[in-house]
């Protein structure tokens, strides 16, 4: 099967002269949960933005295979993006925020409202449709953000360290919720993180990136049973894999001057 994302020799050099990415070769298969794991500032976010089309690679190419009928904006609604912060519109209700993609891609009718409300309840926010972001906790805001990314049923879901700012308990709950959502839809997920435990728990594959300029130094399939459950966090296999991934990550960081 052809990959949904195909990166060929992608590099990124900023105008400031900083090289963020060395040539990256990476394929993402359909329905895969891929984590990009690396130290801070290794270009993970840049890579994710290139995949989303929000940033152009300096050299190389990024090809996407999305089921789109709209030629003018092939990615519109086919890609969901979740940022580090919830990035909600404060003047809009939870429902209004989740409806945004529909508003921008097409029109908002009764069907879309229903769909958005269903998405809110899928992330555990039934009954909060009319709440404004400032009335919600940090974890709930992130859930709204995830619902917004999922509402168009995207082929590709890109998440940029979405849980980094949350407390451990909320983070674990959201990890499980994200897994359930992924399992039920079989969307392809690219997940940026700097947490070894999180990436092993969630992913079917992990690409370990080196310090800047970022380079894929290890490509590890995570052979753990599906669906993943909480009990896995204390499973010896899980811990062994975490140790291996950690070792790869420390090797990736050796070159970093500190």
């Amino acid at each position, binding site marked *: 099967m052809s990959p949904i994302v195909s990166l060929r020799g992608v590099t990124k050099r900023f105008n400031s002269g900083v090289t963020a990415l060395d040539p990256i070769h990476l394929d993402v298969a359909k329905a895969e949960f891929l984590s990009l794991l690396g130290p801070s500032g290794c270009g993970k976010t840049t890579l994710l933005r290139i995949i989303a089309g929000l940033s152009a690679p300096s050299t190389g190419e990024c090809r996407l295979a999305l089921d789109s009928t709209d030629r003018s904006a092939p990615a519109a609604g086919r890609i969901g993006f979740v940022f580090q912060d919830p990035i909600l519109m404060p003047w809009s209700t939870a429902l209004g925020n989740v409806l945004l993609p529909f508003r921008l891609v097409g029109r908002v009718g009764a069907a879309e409202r229903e769909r958005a409300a269903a998405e809110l309840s899928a992330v555990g926010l039934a009954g909060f449709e009319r709440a*404004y972001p400032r009335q919600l906790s940090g974890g709930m805001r992130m859930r709204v953000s995830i619902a917004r990314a999922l509402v168009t049923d995207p082929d590709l879901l890109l998440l940029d360290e979405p849980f980094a700012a949350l407390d451990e308990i909320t983070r674990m709950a959201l990890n499980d919720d994200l897994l359930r959502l992924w399992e039920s839809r079989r969307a392809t997920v690219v997940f940026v993180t700097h947490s070894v435990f999180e990436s092993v728990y969630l992913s079917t594959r992990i690409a370990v990136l080196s310090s800047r300029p970022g380079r894929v130094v290890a490509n590890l399939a995570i052979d753990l049973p599906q669906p993943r459950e909480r009990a896995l966090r204390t499973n010896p296999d899980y811990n062994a894999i975490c140790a291996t991934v950690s070792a790869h990550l420390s090797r990736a960081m050796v070159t970093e001057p500190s």
Partner: protein
Amino acid sequence: MRRRTRLWRIAAPIAVGVVLLALWQAIVTVEQIPVYILPGPAAIGAALWTDGPSLLGSLLVTLRITLAALAAAAFLGGAIALVFSLSRILALSLFPYAVILQVTPIVAIAPLIIIWVQQPFLALLVCAWIVAFFPIVSNTTIGLNSAERNLLALFRLYGASRWQTLRYLRLPTALPYFLAGLRISGGLALIGAVVAEFVAGTGGTETGLAFRILEAGYRLAIPRLFAALFLLSATGIVIYLIIDVLSRFALRHWHESAIDEGEE
């Protein structure tokens, strides 16, 4: 607890006002200050009572100019800001002239405007507008350019058009900035109207409050001067309060400035 705070918010300033007025009256009475130098609150109250109806007519003239100028400042100021945010070249080339218009003292250019614009009401309106429009332009321009970077990226991701980005992102982001500008412009429009009236004199058939102040000064009718002054300040305060209520209502759900501290 909350109700008590709210009570204090109203009661405390009133108490201060009453004490100051009493002090004022006491000094004027004890020192026997002549009424044409400094009238006491009682004399001003009496003047307000007897001259009130005729002053109110003049107030209406000034108020009409003020409100028309404020409305024009809101619409044109908002429109100019919108144009500035849509075209960088226009913004770069025109903004300095908006600044020049703003920093030139209105007293100095009002005579010219009154000569150029034949219709007196329109002339005064233009003067008041020149004073009032700048805070709205500058605030709204900043607001329109303050959209959250990642939300802009998200809009791009969904292929949003320029119009959609304006309608759903830039305009809502700019609203609190616009309202903050409107708050400043409300007071400035009144000042502009008064200054223009001072320069214009009677100007036409209708006499505004500013000219009544001048007139009362010439005639040494100082209590009436104070009464007119009082009406002018009261008008400014009412305009401010109305804009404040409007702004709180518009932003009640989301903006920190519109949220009561006791609410959460």
